């Protein structure tokens, strides 16, 4: 579904104005430095539930915004 993303500066705007930015979290359980690099490069939390993520308002205020969204329903919290 096409998201409408809440911008604290510009109001709620259509997804076409935005660029998605994942906030990668490498699990603490991975301790080896190389393994952490591989995880950061390729692996994802991909949570089915509430996710924290960043969006860049490219065709707007050109600022990064951090939001929380429920990935099961696409609703912002």
């Amino acid at each position, binding site marked *: 579904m096409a*998201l409408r993303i809440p911008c604290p500066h510009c109001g709620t705007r*259509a997804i076409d104005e935005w660029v998605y930015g994942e906030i990668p979290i490498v699990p603490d359980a991975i301790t080896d430095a190389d393994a952490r690099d591989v995880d950061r490069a*390729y692996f994802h939390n991909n949570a089915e539930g509430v996710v924290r993520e960043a969006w860049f308002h490219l065709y707007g205020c050109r600022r990064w915004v951090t939001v929380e969204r429920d990935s099961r329903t696409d609703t912002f919290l």
Partner: protein
Amino acid sequence: MNEFWEAKVTLQWAELGSSYDVVIIGGGGHGLATAYNLAVKHGITNVAVIEKDYIGGGNSGRNTTVIRSNYGKPEPVRFYQRSLDLYRQLEDETDRWIMHDERGLLWLAHTEAGRRQERSRSSMNLAFGAETHFVEPEEIAKLAPGINLDAGGEFPITGGSLHVGGATARHDRVNWAFAEGAMRAGVTIVQGVKVEGLILDGDRVVGVKTNTGDVAAGTVVSAVGGHATTIATMANVRLPIRTHPLQAFVTNHYEQTWDAIVASNDLGFYISQTARGEMLGGSHIDPQPSYSRRSDHHFINEISRRIVALFPFMGNLRVLRQWTGICDMSPDYTPIMGFTSAPGFLITTGWGTWGFKAIPAGGEAMAQLIASGETPELIAPFSIDRFANDRTLADRGSSGTH
């Protein structure tokens, strides 16, 4: 097989027992084909497939049914070509009419660079057994009647490739053919049962927890489509998967017979005609990772504009239905199959927007792996180790959207 009369598919549902040699989570095409191959080809019949909704209710019953092998890297071409060959035999093998229709797939280029790319892809495909030929715009006009070769000036067609083996098949019938064959050979398939946890013994996965009780298993296979990460996390296995929605639509009946399947990467869509005469279209994944299967007007709006630029006749048709599936996207657009760091826990994922065509070969290979305990050569390049070993198979351009 008889085109006018067909025996109803006989699906014999059994009760879920408490212990199996193999438990497969997910009754999509990949889970069902794995079960079918285990039972029919290897005599391993103490197998259960556990499906939370209904079989084929995930992406295997929501896709646009394109079957092709014109990929961009040798390893995937070889694998998908095997699947193409297996699809050709599937009606004889299962005695079920899956409406397999080998109609050819036309892949359009709109730039000089695109033209060069289709040329080189055609030769690479040919070299690895997937018949593909470069075609000039004049021939494209014949293959896709009604096409506007200059696409309104913005995306003029500069050439393309014709993938001769490109085909479609009715997705539900594929799922049911594998389910029926597996059930006949003794596999237990249950619907409406959800796997909510895995039973661990140290690192090893030894069973599944469901809403109807625990089930012990010698081997657990995760074949859950977009939910791959949710299940793998229960086994403490990290996946390089991100789940993205993919939408599709069909129009009302178009009165002309329209044979080819046509794809344009630059315009980001592909279309074909269904057996009912509807025009079926698809496009890119939605940009945000999500498990939501809500469809939207935005998608129809965007894709129509691009489709009508190339196929003005589509402007006179009406959208009848649209729907969404959630796709397990791998970072290199190539499947991820086989063993994991958790003993007893196997995965078949990374099927993204391209895994319907792979169902017969995917099921064959996973069953061989389980039966022999070793990874078949055909899928060895698709192991999850490739990310740590710097052996990714980046193939975005040809995995594209279908």
